[in-house]
């Protein structure tokens, strides 16, 4: 019903192939038999090993058949994934629990092993990720905490593997956040490890362009600094390092959107007062202005070697607009001398030139640049 990326020519060639058509009809018959068996067993509320096998067969052919996943969970909940109940005849309860835990863990491992090849073949199927998460929650529900944690820890490795195959799979990233949240405890944070993970990602081959990793970084940083108990100087150093990392990436590939969105966040969140997600939220206004001027000067330099890069121009226009806003804030007299005088006419002329170039380079977004023009140019 929804075909993505199947070309019409390859489809036409395939449908002319008589043998392929015969194979399809045979598969169709098998599939009908299987789904009929599934529907019959479900209606009869059959919760057995045989019924579980039928769900596995259907799901291997069609993992999108969500009702079959529901039935599979019902079967497991009725048959094997039962809570521990001590037997009344006074046998050694600890030993009994040990046996229960080992066998339940074995069953959960089997379930996860069933899912792994499916996830590899269909990495973007919501229902498989869901079912996997459900299985892990069963570990939390049925096993002792240290035992359950082993499952979640192992899952972190798996999701790492999935993300190394497709660094942008947003199911993978979402799932990673779920897994981490389930391992974390009030006194046990994974924020350092997770931040290091994104560092490895953006510094790795092709990682610079990984918007997902930069995004994750922006989510982690405020918490990271909070938990480190970083003071203002440490925060400013951190911001500088982050901008430096980005500078290197942007000089290499200034046409990569991912970097510019991240850069915009770093600049705006830290230049404007009162953003609690900023890296260094308590900088005095003059420091914020100097930081911004620094970025603007660097971008002007970058523009010299990449004169037709629209992202540089757009950032320059926005940041100069931001600079004008910041200068409206009350600045203590003793700080004022740290700021260079700016020739406003010259600045206005530059802005116009950049905006004209933008419209010429990127006529598709003319409307966007006209709006920008209105918001940054001093009324003529």
């Amino acid at each position: 019903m929804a075909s993505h990326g199947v070309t019409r020519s390859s489809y036409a060639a395939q449908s002319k192939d008589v043998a392929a058509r015969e194979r399809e009809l045979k598969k169709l018959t098998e599939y009908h038999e299987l789904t009929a068996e599934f529907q019959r067993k479900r209606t009869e509320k059959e919760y057995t090993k045989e019924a579980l096998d039928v769900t596995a067969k259907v799901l291997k052919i069609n993992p999108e058949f969500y009702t079959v996943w529901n039935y599979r969970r019902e079967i497991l909940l009725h048959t094997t994934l039962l809570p521990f109940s001590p037997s009344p005849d006074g046998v050694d309860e600890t030993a009994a629990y040990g046996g229960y835990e080992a066998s339940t863990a074995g069953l959960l491992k089997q379930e996860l092993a069933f899912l792994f090849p499916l996830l590899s073949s269909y990495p973007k199927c919501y229902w498989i990720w869901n079912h996997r998460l459900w299985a892990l929650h069963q570990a939390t529900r049925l096993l002792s905490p240290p035992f359950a944690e082993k499952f979640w820890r192992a899952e972190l490795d798996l999701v790492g593997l999935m993300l190394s195959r497709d660094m942008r799979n947003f199911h993978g990233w979402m799932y990673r956040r779920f897994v981490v949240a389930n391992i974390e405890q009030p006194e046990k944070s994974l924020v350092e490890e997770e931040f290091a993970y994104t560092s490895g990602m953006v510094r790795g081959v092709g990682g610079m362009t990984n918007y997902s990793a930069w995004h994750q970084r922006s989510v982690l940083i405020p918490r990271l600094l909070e938990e480190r108990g970083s003071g203002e100087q440490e925060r400013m150093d951190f911001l500088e390092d982050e901008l430096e990392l980005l500078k290197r990436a942007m000089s290499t590939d200034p046409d990569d959107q991912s970097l510019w969105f991240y850069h915009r966040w770093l600049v705006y969140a830290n230049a404007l007062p009162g953003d609690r997600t900023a890296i260094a939220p308590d900088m005095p206004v003059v420091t914020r202005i100097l930081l911004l001027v620094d970025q603007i000067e660097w971008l002007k330099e970058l523009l010299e070697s990449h004169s037709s890069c629209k992202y540089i121009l757009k950032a320059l226009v926005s940041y100069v607009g931001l600079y004008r806003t910041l200068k409206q804030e009350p600045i203590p007299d003793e700080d004022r001398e740290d700021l260079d005088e700016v020739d406003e006419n010259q600045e206005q002329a530059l802005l116009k030139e950049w905006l004209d170039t933008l419209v010429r380079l990127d006529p598709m977004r003319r409307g966007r640049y006209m709006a920008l023009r209105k918001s940054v140019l001093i009324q003529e």
Partner: protein
Amino acid sequence: MADSSVSNDILHVEKHVAYIRSLDTRRDSLEYWLTEHLRLSGVYWGLTALCLLGHPDALPRDDTIAFVKSCQHPCGGFGAHPGHDPHLLYTVSAIQILAIEDALDAIDQDAVVSWISGLQQEDGVFAGDEWGETDTRFLYGAMNCLSLLGRLDAINVPKAVEYVMRCQNHDGGFGMAPGAESHSGQIFTCVGALAIAGDLERLDKDLLGDWLCERQLPNGGLNGRPEKLEDVCYSWWVLSSMAMIGKLDWIDKDSLVKFILRCQDEEKGGIADRPGDMPDVFHTVFGVAGLSLLGYEGLEEVDPVYSHLSSLDFQIAESCNVA
């Protein structure tokens, strides 16, 4: 490959109508059966496309309503097909179809309302079904349905709005849950939910509009996230979000129209994800809706908020290689 005698400069209305009508006759193909779990949504996409194309009567109305009714469970929710479990995704499709056919009276609406409102969680978001998966898609779906039924009073709207705002990112976009990366399908659902709640003013429209307009690629098509390929279905989500925040003029409409037209199967009808690919009903409706929003001549007007096009099924878009 492309037939040079038929050009793709115009919309092939009659061919698309014939294509959609033919969909239910392909019962000897494996694909027809492998997509049974989407059937109700498929009907909804086909019907919406036909309405926009000016052929609302091309599917038999009585059969359509009877099929929708056959998918309802005693709890009130709808499955994708008889024998499939209730889920919010298909409940939205069911309500949308009945709204289009002016047949909401054909079902027990109170049951639907109570089933949906029971899915709202403590933090304001909605689960998709009794198994508890939550997502901003479901939140939008619930609000869309209840507003079509005139029963938004049955849920806690302010809480839902607060949840949506927690999903907003530094780039102005929204993800499927708090902390998740911005994604244009999720942006559609979050902006749509705010529109239904009358809370669009809570958005930084310039910031969001900027992220959205950067989705347009040189060939005119739009992608769903930075550094991804263009796709007709993502074109719709980006476009309708831009319409809701009043930024449609931030992209080049003409080149997008041309891109969508190039994705037509000029011989058999239907629209594909991108030029030269196999068409399907999902991309057909999003392509036609996009053209309608862009003011393409001869099409019925689409409403970007309700649109009779809830985009909940972007799990399909997710199976795109490009998603």
